């Protein structure tokens, strides 16, 4: 399937093979889940958490397996921490480290829903939640452009290093808005580029993943 993805903020990406893109991303992040020491074009694991300013106290008790497969690009919790009782959606949760950090912060009265499209990551996240002993977090399979979450459910949406992998960012941001309550908070880690990416390069799936 190919589609023209259009953001009101920029030109479309004609003839981008969406299925191939998603498969390439799933393949890459399956390796991150199953072999986190493989060595990637991005940092992973505990060294990355320290680079991004994660407090060691936030990670206490969290499954080392989830931490090992962490591949974020920033720190959603550095802006403001979730409050006890908050409902949080983690978009592109991966192996679940950020979801588990959020689950600790919101406490037993809060809830966290992690969403990811990669089955290997979801399996790892669900095991990590069991191993960590947190019961206020669940993981759902889905795409950022179609979140499996009810309208207005969340107090806070977080995401870490994922929005850049979504071809239709307008749809993804729209979904984040949809699931938030009015006044709800968006706290995202992602990437920006300082040099323009040529239109032809946007169709190169290898550049999306590497």
């Amino acid at each position, binding site marked *: 399937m190919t589609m023209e993805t259009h953001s009101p903020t920029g030109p479309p990406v004609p003839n981008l093979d969406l299925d191939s893109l998603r498969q390439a991303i799933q393949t890459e992040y399956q390796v991150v889940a199953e072999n986190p020491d493989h060595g990637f074009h991005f940092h992973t694991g505990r060294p990355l958490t320290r680079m991004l300013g994660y407090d060691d106290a936030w990670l206490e008790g969290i499954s080392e397996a989830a931490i090992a497969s962490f591949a974020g690009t920033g720190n959603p919790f550095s802006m403001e921490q979730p409050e006890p009782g908050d409902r949080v959606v983690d978009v592109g949760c991966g192996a679940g480290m950020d979801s588990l950090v959020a689950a600790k912060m919101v406490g037993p009265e809060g809830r966290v829903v992690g969403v990811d499209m990669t089955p290997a990551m979801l399996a790892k996240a669900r095991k990590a939640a069991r191993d960590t002993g947190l019961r206020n977090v669940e993981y759902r399979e889905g795409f950022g452009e179609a979140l499996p979450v009810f309208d207005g459910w969340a107090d806070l949406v977080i995401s870490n290093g994922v929005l850049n992998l979504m071809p239709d960012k307008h749809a993804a941001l729209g979904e984040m808005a949809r699931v938030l309550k009015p006044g709800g*908070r968006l706290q995202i880690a992602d*990437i920006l580029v300082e040099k323009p990416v040529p239109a032809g390069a946007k169709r190169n799936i290898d550049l999306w993943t590497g």
Partner: protein
Amino acid sequence: MAVVMAGFVDFEITWRADVFGGAPQESSAASFGTMGINFRARKATSEEEWQAALARLNCELPS
């Protein structure tokens, strides 16, 4: 702009840094000056608040 157009207000980039340098494999990131960022925003509490944020962007909604 995309964040505001999706229904958010009070958009702010709070941090940026090179998060790819020194990674085990070479990346295309450096060629585009790619940096990690943190940003935040808030879902507008009303249509009026959102329209005011859009007006500050001085943009038009897509038809």
